[in-house]
Structure formats: structure tokens, C-alpha cells
């Protein structure tokens, strides 16, 4: 039953999505790839689309995956499932348990969860960057063009703060990457 799977899958994501949008991406990858809902490639495209459209990234990803697998009903269920845990937890915390989060055992658990999320995000980032260039997983050959684009984008990301006095925004980085993709893969 795809609708139930969507609901449960994204409920799991919603329960464990600590560390903001980028903390949730590895979880969503896990769920989406293990059910075989999307390919790694489509998911990566959707991360870029979610980053460039309004709204929280994990809500956007849930809506997209839900819609691609279960139409409108799927989109509604996946979106509700991903926000339901945080909705309920905030209600509980503000209404009843204002001190629950200060409990020393809860704090001890959170001290373990947060660095773990950082490690998972780091590994996912490394894997995705390398996976674009090297023959990991399904890719057959070393991709020289991808290496060039990676290096150019990396250098741009490092130089930008010096030239413009602020960080290269995600949307600008995606735009530059799109232009480089059109040039190199033409």
C-alpha cells in the first residue's frame, strides 16, 4: 500500500530530522532509496529544486516524493507526515513539558544525536561529491567534466566571500552550476 508506506516513511523522517534541512536530507535519501521511490539522480535534482523554491526543504521533498508516487493524495499524506512529529512535539513542549528538554537524560541523548547527524551529513556530502566524479555505485566511468565543474564551483565558493564580502548563496551556486553544466555537457 503505497499511501501507507509514504505516510510511515515520512513520519520516520519527521521524527528523526534533527539539524535542519541538511540533517534531513540523508534520512530522506535513506527512505526514498530503500523503497525505490526515486533514483539517486532524480532525488538530487529535487534537492536543488527544493533549495530554489519557497518553503522548508524537507516539506518540499516530501511533497515531491509523495506526488510522484501517489498523486495528490500521496503528496498530502507525505507532507503531513513529515511535519506531524515536530507539530506534536512543539505542542507538547509548550503546553505541558516546558522542562522536558532540560531533563539531563534528554540532554545526554541530544548530545549523542547532534554530532551523529553532523557526521551523517558530512559523509553524505563527501559521497555525493565523489559519486559525481568517480565510478561509485552504478556509474561506469570516471567523469572528467564533472571533476572540472566540481573544481570550478569549489574555487568560486572559496573566492566569493573575498570578492563580495558574503557567502555564495545556495541559489546563486545552483545557477552557476546550471550554466557550467550547459557549457561542459553541451
Amino acid at each position: 500500500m503505497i499511501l501507507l508506506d509514504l505516510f510511515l516513511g515520512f513520519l520516520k523522517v519527521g521524527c528523526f530530522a534533527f539539524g535542519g534541512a541538511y540533517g534531513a536530507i540523508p534520512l530522506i535519501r535513506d527512505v526514498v532509496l530503500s523503497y525505490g521511490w526515486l533514483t539517486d539522480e532524480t532525488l538530487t535534482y529535487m534537492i536543488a529544486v527544493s533549495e530554489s523554491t519557497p518553503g522548508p526543504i524537507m516539506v518540499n521533498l516530501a511533497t515531491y516524493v509523495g506526488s510522484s508516487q501517489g498523486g495528490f493524495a500521496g503528496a498530502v499524506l507525505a507532507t503531513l507526515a513529515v511535519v506531524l512529529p515536530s507539530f506534536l512535539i512543539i505542542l507538547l513542549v509548550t503546553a505541558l513539558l516546558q522542562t522536558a528538554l532540560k531533563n539531563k537524560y534528554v540532554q545526554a541523548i541530544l548530545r549523542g544525536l547532534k554530532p551523529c547527524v553532523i557526521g551523517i551529513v558530512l559523509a553524505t556530502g563527501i559521497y555525493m561529491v565523489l559519486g559525481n566524479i568517480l565510478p561509485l555505485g552504478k556509474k561506469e566511468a570516471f567523469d572528467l567534466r564533472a571533476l572540472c565543474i566540481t573544481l570550478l564551483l569549489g574555487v568560486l565558493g572559496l573566492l566569493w566571500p573575498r570578492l563580495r564580502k558574503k557567502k555564495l548563496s545556495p541559489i546563486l551556486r545552483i545557477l552557476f552550476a546550471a550554466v557550467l553544466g550547459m557549457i561542459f555537457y553541451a
Partner: protein
Amino acid sequence: MKSKHILPDLLLTFMKIGFFTFGGGYAMIAMIEDACVEKKKWITHDEMMNITVIAESTPGPIAINCATFTGYKQAGFIGALAATLGMILPSFLVIYLISMFLDNFLEITIIANAFKGIRIAVGLLILDAACTMIRKMHKKILPRTIMICSAILMLMINLFAWNFSSISLMLAAAAVSLTVFMIQNRSAGKGGNAQ
């Protein structure tokens, strides 16, 4: 004090915030602060600070946490529902529309090539996010060890397609941290009043 119009007001205000903030996360906090603290005076600046701290210790998008909290403060459960729905409605509609056209869109060669480049940017964005998180992390031995072990394990899971989910990894890390805390607590409690 609180009029009947509070529900539509909550819904529309959060829809506006949801529609005009890109990239999610901390970009939204500034918008929410401006709308809910400065203009509408629904919550105080201190409450806003408080909720961002709570958001860091609870799962889910920080913008949703803020919306739920503000809605609840104004009009209880129904208010929380109105604000949260307002927050997700715009992105839901936008993404739903995109999902209907994305496949056709990707069949155009030049767009497909652009997305091959964009794929690379996404990897770098995630790596960048990880570096920012590492910089803000507690510089103590336990969190660092957990971070490095998790990173190595997660990389192995990805590379060798091990059947071990990131959620199991998180639960293991939580268990390790809790165990270390209880052992330290017990040895610190010896002699004194152990709890």
C-alpha cells in the same frame, strides 16, 4: 483581546512567510521575527529566541516549529494548526505544480545538461552545510568521536550499500552518549548523594 479574526490572520501571515522565503531554515527566522515579533506582536523577542533554542533540540523544520509555537500562543490548538498549515501550503502548491512538469522538463537536452551541473552543486552544498555544523559544534572529545565515527560508518554504508539505516546509526549514537553520561553520573555520585 483576541478577536475572531486571529485564525485567518495567522493563516495568511504564515502563508506569506512560506511563500517568500527561499532555502528554508534560518532565512525564515528573520522573516518570522519581523512578522510575528515586530509587526503583529504575537510573541516577544525572548519567546522567539527561546523557540529557536527548542527547535534545535526537536526534530523537524525550524520554520514549522516557530509557526506551531506562535499559533498555539495566540489561539491554542486550532491556532497552531492554522499557522502550521499556512506555513506549508505555499511550498506544497509550488512543488506539486513542479512535480507535474519536471519529467517533461528534463527531456529537453539543455535542461538535462544544466541539471548535470546542478547535481554537482547539491553535493557541494551538503558538504558546505556539514562544515558549518562542524564549526559550531562543541569541541569536546565525546561529540567529536561520535561525529567522526558516524561519518566513517555512514560513508561505508553508502559505499558498500550496507543494510543499515541512518536512523539506526542515530539511535546507536544516542545510546552511547546516554551510557557515557550514566557512567559518569554514577562515578561522580559515589560518596555524595547519588540520584
